[in-house]
């Protein structure tokens, strides 16, 4: 079942066309990764899907809802983890999770369930009662990912989820993303890390200069371009 469909998507900033005629879809429980160099249009695409930026043209549908016409309902179904996101430093980790859960559900039982799930995902224990301002980058990222996962959304949009993290933290976060998809969430993520992409993704979309050049599984792409790994595929597509 398709959760996300993107059709003929365009985004223009003044004279610059950041995204040009992008089409793809993501199914329930699938991890779809957007790969591309800096400034290729990955984050702009994710932001449009997350209802933050308005497309210049094209259509985005999430669970059948039009992102532009029904953005309020769409936000109930998605969670978005921006690339360089932070949390409110004056709050404790637990207060932050309670605050976020309260925004997703006014029902106290549901809210508690979300917070319990998030606590389990973060595995931060008593540190959740410390101010977020005292957290390391890895702890903050885990907290944010837990926030993005706690509601088990229809679609999780994760922009560079392991950006700036060490190997151990990155591995842990990849496992969490996998687990999220196994629970039925459609995951759309972007990353520069080809190993991560290959490990996580069911399908991959290669973006160059705002255009989606290739879409397929890692194996299919490697086979099509006669490449040993995704980096070679990416290089060939980018230079073509």
């Amino acid at each position, binding site marked *: 079942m398709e959760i996300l469909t993107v059709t003929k998507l365009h985004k223009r900033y003044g004279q610059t066309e950041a995204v040009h005629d992008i089409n793809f879809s993501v199914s329930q429980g699938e991890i779809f990764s957007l790969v591309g160099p800096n400034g290729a249009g990955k984050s702009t695409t994710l932001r449009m899907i*997350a209802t933050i930026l308005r497309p210049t043209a094209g259509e985005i549908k999430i669970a059948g809802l039009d992102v532009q016409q029904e953005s309020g309902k769409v*936000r109930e179904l998605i969670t*978005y*983890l921006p690339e360089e996101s932070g*949390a409110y430093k004056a*709050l404790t980790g637990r207060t932050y999770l309670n605050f*976020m859960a*309260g*925004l*997703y559900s006014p029902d106290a039982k549901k809210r508690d369930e979300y917070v319990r799930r998030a606590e389990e995902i973060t595995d931060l224990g008593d540190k959740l009662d410390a101010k977020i301002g005292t957290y390391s980058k890895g702890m903050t990222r885990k907290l944010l990912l837990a926030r993005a996962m706690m509601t088990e959304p229809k679609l999780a949009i994760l922009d560079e989820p392991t950006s700036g993290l060490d190997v151990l933290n990155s591995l842990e976060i990849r496992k969490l993303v996998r687990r999220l998809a196994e629970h039925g969430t459609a995951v759309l993520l972007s990353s520069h890390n080809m190993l991560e992409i290959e490990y996580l993704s069911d399908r991959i979309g290669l973006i160059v200069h705002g255009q989606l050049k290739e879409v397929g599984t890692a194996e299919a792409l490697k086979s099509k371009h006669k490449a040993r790994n995704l980096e070679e595929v990416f290089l060939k597509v980018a230079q073509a």
Partner: protein
Amino acid sequence: MKRFLVLLGKELRELATPQTILPIVLVILAFIGLGKVLSQQSKVASKPSPVLVVDHDNTPASNGVVKLLKKGNLDVTQQTADPDFSQSISEKAVVVIPAGFGRDLAAGKQTTLDTYTVQSGFSLAKIANATLLTGVTAQLNAALAAQRIAQISPRLDPSKVLAPVKTDEHIVANGKVANISPDKIAAYLGSQITFVPVILFVVIVFAGQMVATAMANEKENKTLETLLSLPISRTTIVGAKMLAAAIVAGLTAVAYIYGLHNLQSAFTGGVAVDDATRAAANQLGLNLSTSSYVMLGVALFLGILAALAIALVLGAFADNIKSIQALIMPLLLLLLVPYLATMATDISTLPNWFRGVLYVIPFTYTFQTMPNLYLHNYSTVLLGSLYELAFFIVFMILAGRLFASDSLLTLRPGNLLKRR
């Protein structure tokens, strides 16, 4: 509604941190401390000032001068030798009566008293020493002139010769007349009329900075994108930020009012207004009824809302907290211009173009509310409040569009007309 409250709670937690509360507490403590010091100073100032009289004449006339000086609020000490000004002296002023003073006066000649003011500093209190002997000299001249008139023509009443015209002062306000000095009424109302704009100025600047900083914080801490993707409307985000800033600013205002009241009491020495002045003010209708207080409250509230809406729009273009000071400048100007204009000038006499500029700024109406209420210009107050409301609505629509557009992230003001 529940989501709005959740967001409001977060905004309040973010704003009411020790870093924001501590400076407020310190300012209030400073006001109270300063008030206590000034109050002690005004008690010291009300004590008789020490004056040294050097009498080289020692005649009944010179003794009369000394008696007159003692009748004033002066602590007079006498000596016959000239003081050595190269040494420090404890007196604030010195009066030297020359030899032959009595003789010259008796002969009807104009005579001279040498006065010396001891300038030991340049604070307001020290500079006030310069006028210490002014009143006494005038009294001395009046008393000696009266003596002279009585000597020349015993049939004349010296007081009528010296002041052939006396004024019976009246004041007209709100179409009514009261028999009282305008100075007394001005002093009675002045403190109240100037107090409200001062508080308003402080609160608006504080609230404006707070809401603009809240926006900049979201960007600097990289929380804005997440916030915009949450299941809450942009109007809820805007409303919660504004209400939180208004609540914190309101509480700050109450605290500042308490602190400033202490400070102001020190300046006025806590002197109660006399019954005659109060009765005259009531007779003139120069008082505020319950409905006037309601109108004042509404005008102040709308003024604060207008400032918050402007600050929110300005804050949306900040990419970090450092840029807030520069971005908030237009709001400060919008406050400062009508504040100074209404405090220092009569707006009706200003050039038309400048009056036009003032009437476009919503805070002009806020600053004019108190005098307009005292003068029963209720329709002006109501029209001003309606203008403030319209101004607030326009800026809220602008803020709503800004939050619903790409401009919040791209920092470009374009595309505000297109909404999500």
